[in-house]
C-alpha cells in the first residue's frame, strides 16, 4: 500500500489498457459506470457553461475540461462523512459531494446562494489562491480534536503551491497530524505561467518532504489511479494502522498528492491561452484524455457498450439542460440579502443603509437606479 518515491502512479495507459503490474481498484461496475458518467457530465456541463458565458447569460467561468479524471477520481474516494474543500474549478468534484449543477451555475451567475449547500459536506468556493488549504487543515484539526473520524480532501492548483498559505497549511497539518489530504491539480499552468516557472523543484509531490509526510505523484488523467491514491491517502488520514512505518505518537498522517494533468481550455472565459501556449502542447495532452481512457477500459471489460453510452449521453444532456432551466428560473437575489449576510444580526448602521436603499428603489425604481 505504500507509495514510495516520486514515480508516477498509473492504472490505465493512455490507450485505456491496464498498466502492467498495476492493481485495478476494487470498484463494482455500477461505481465504475458512475465514474464514467460523471466525467462525461462534467465535460458536457463545461461546454454549456462556456456558451452561457459567451451568450452573456453568465459571468466569468473557469472551465475544467481535461481535469475530469482528477476531480471525479478523487472525490469518489471520499466516504459519506468526509469533507471536500474545493478550489474554484472543482465543479465535478462538488457535484459528487452533492452540489447541484444548477447551484454551481447560480454561483458563477453572481449569486452567493449557489455557494450555500446545506447538508453537503463541502466548503464554499473561495477565490483567493491557496487560502483554503488552511481552512482544510483547520477543519480537519477541529474534527480530530472533537473525536471525529472523517477526513478532509483539499483541492488546489500548481500555482497555489507558491503561496505562503500552502506552506503554512501543510506545515500545521504535519505538526498536528490532521486528517487531511492535499490534492494538487497540477494542470501545468497557472494562467500563463508554466509549471517550471512556478518552482524549481522537479515535482510538486516532493514538497511534502518539507512537512514530514508523504508525497505521491499520480497521473491525474487516469481516474482509476487517482481514485486509488486518494483512497490510500484518506485511509492514512483516518487510520493509524494504514500509516504503518511511522514512529510512536504519530497517529494518522496527511498526504500531498500531485495529480499531473492538463487544462484543455482557457484558464477562465476571460483568458486567451493562445497567447502563451502552443497548440501542439494541447494536442499532446489530449491524447491522455481521461474520458476515452476509462471508456475503453469499461468497454474492454464489457461493462459498457455503445448503446449504454448513448443513453448516458442523452441523460447527461438532459440533466445539464434541466440545470440551466432551473437556474434561469430562479428569481434574482433581493438587495436585502446583502445586508443580512454580514452578521448574524443586522447592525443599526446596516439597517439604516438597507432602509436607505429601499427608499431609493421606491423613489426611483430599479431601472433608473441601476441604469
Amino acid at each position, binding site marked *: 500500500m505504500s507509495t514510495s518515491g516520486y514515480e508516477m502512479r498509473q492504472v490505465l495507459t493512455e490507450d485505456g489498457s491496464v498498466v502492467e503490474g498495476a492493481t485495478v481498484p476494487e470498484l463494482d461496475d455500477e461505481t465504475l459506470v458512475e465514474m464514467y458518467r460523471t466525467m462525461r457530465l462534467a465535460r458536457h456541463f463545461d461546454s454549456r457553461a462556456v456558451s452561457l458565458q459567451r451568450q452573456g447569460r453568465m459571468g466569468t467561468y473557469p472551465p475544467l475540461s481535461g481535469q475530469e479524471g482528477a476531480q471525479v477520481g478523487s472525490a469518489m474516494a471520499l466516504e459519506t462523512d468526509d469533507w471536500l474543500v474545493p478550489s474554484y474549478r472543482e465543479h465535478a468534484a462538488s457535484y459528487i459531494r452533492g452540489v447541484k449543477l444548477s447551484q454551481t451555475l447560480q454561483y458563477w451567475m453572481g449569486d*452567493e*446562494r449557489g*455557494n*450555500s*449547500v*446545506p447538508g453537503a459536506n463541502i*466548503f*464554499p*468556493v*473561495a477565490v*483567493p489562491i491557496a*487560502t483554503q*488549504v*488552511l*481552512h*482544510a*487543515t*483547520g*477543519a*480537519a*484539526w*477541529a*474534527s480530530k*480534536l*472533537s473525536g471525529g473520524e472523517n477526513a478532509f480532501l483539499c483541492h488546489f492548483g500548481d500555482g497555489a503551491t507558491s503561496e*505562503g*498559505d500552502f506552506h*503554512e*497549511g501543510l*506545515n*500545521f497539518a504535519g*505538526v*498536528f497530524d490532521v486528517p487531511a489530504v492535499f490534492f494538487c491539480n497540477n494542470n501545468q499552468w497557472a494562467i500563463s505561467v508554466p509549471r517550471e516557472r512556478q518552482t524549481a523543484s522537479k515535482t510538486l509531490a516532493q514538497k511534502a518532504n518539507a512537512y514530514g509526510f508523504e508525497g505521491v505523484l499520480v497521473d491525474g488523467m487516469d481516474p482509476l489511479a487517482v481514485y486509488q491514491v486518494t483512497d490510500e491517502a484518506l485511509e492514512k488520514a483516518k487510520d493509524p494502522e494504514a500509516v504503518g512505518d511511522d514512529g510512536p505518537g504519530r497517529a494518522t498522517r496527511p498526504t500531498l498528492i500531485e495529480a499531473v494533468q492538463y487544462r484543455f481550455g482557457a484558464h477562465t472565459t476571460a483568458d486567451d491561452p493562445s497567447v502563451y501556449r502552443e497548440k501542439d502542447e494541447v494536442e499532446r495532452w489530449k491524447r491522455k484524455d481521461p474520458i476515452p481512457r476509462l471508456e475503453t477500459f469499461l468497454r474492454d471489460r464489457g461493462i459498457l457498450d455503445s448503446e449504454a453510452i448513448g443513453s448516458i449521453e442523452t441523460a447527461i444532456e438532459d440533466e445539464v439542460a434541466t440545470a440551466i432551466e432551473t437556474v434561469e428560473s430562479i428569481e434574482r437575489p433581493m438587495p436585502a*440579502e446583502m445586508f443580512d*449576510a*454580514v*452578521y*448574524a444580526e443586522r*447592525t*443599526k*448602521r446596516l439597517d439604516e443603509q438597507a432602509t436607505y436603499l429601499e427608499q431609493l428603489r421606491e423613489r426611483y425604481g430599479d431601472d433608473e437606479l441601476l441604469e
Partner: protein
Amino acid sequence: MSTQQAKTQNLTLVQAVRDGLKCEMERDDDVIVLGEDVGKNGGVFRATEGLYDEFGEDRVIDTPLAESGIVGTSIGMAAYGLRPVPEIQFSGFMYPAFDQIVSHAARLRSRSRGRFTCPMVVRAPYGGGIRAPEHHAESKEAIYVHEAGLKVVIPSTPYDTKGLLAASIRDPDPVIFLEPKLIYRAFRDEVPEESYTVELGEAATRREGDDISIFTWGAMTRPTLEAAESVAEDGIDCEVIDMRTLSPMDTDAIIDSFKKTGRAVIVHEAPKTGGLAGEITATIQENALYYQEAPINRVTGFDVPYPLYALEDYYLPENTRIEDAIRETYEA
C-alpha cells in the same frame, strides 16, 4: 451577574483576559486557545497562564510561528463548529494574517449565505508606551473597522475586559479583540469570579459632563480622564465616553452626548490620517451638525511609522496634549 453577593477578585486587565478565557473554556468545551507561546509559556504577557495545565494541550495549543496559519486554521475550525480564540503575539504581527482575516473570517457568512460562520476571536495586545521593539506598538483598529463582517472590541478596564471577551467568544461572528497592553497591569478592578458578559456595541460613559464630549478607547481612556479632571478645576465639564466596541460603533452614544455638549474631542493613539476620529467626526456632523459649536478636535498619534522608544513618548497623546485640545475646543 446573577446575585448581589457575587464573589469578586481584584484583577489587572491582563488577569481579566486570563480569567475571561478560563471561564469561557469551562463553560463551553468548543472554546480553544491557540497561538505562539500560549501553552507551556502561558503567553508572552502571561494572558494564558495556567490554561495549558488546566485544559490540556488539545485546548491550549502552541502553534508553529505562522500568523496566517494560526488565523487560517482557526477559520477552518470555526467553520467546523469550534470557537477558536487565536492569540497574535502583538497586533503588529496580525498583518501576515490580514488576508485570512479580511478575505475569509469577515466573509465566510456572506460567501455561504449563512451556511458557514466564523465564531472566532482574534486576540492581540495593541498600542504603544511600553518601550518595546519595533512593530510591538501599533494601533490599527481602523483597518479592521473598515472591514464589514468583523467586529472590533477594545476594552479599557479589567471588568469590561472579562465581560467583553466573554461576549466576543459567544458572538456568532468574528471579533478582533485588541488589548491595551500599556495598561495590562496598570491598575486593578473588582472582577466577578463567575462568568458574565458586557454587551458588544455599547459605549460606556466614564465621566458625565455638559461642556465637551470626549470620545476615546483603550489605553487613551486613562489620560483622557485625567485631563478631564484637570480642566474641571477650571470649570470645564467634560463627558468622557469610552467607545469599547469600535465596530459596530455605538453611534447613539456619540450623537446623544454631542447633542448635549455641542463640542467634541476625539482621542486615539493611531495615526491621525485615516484614523477613526474621522469616522466619528463624520457621524457627528451627519447627525448633529446643527448642535455643533466648535470644530471637532482630533488628538491622535502622528502620521509617522511608530517610532522606537527614544521618541515614542512624543508620539503618544497624553494628558497635556489632551488637555490642550480640550481647552482649545472649549474656547473656540
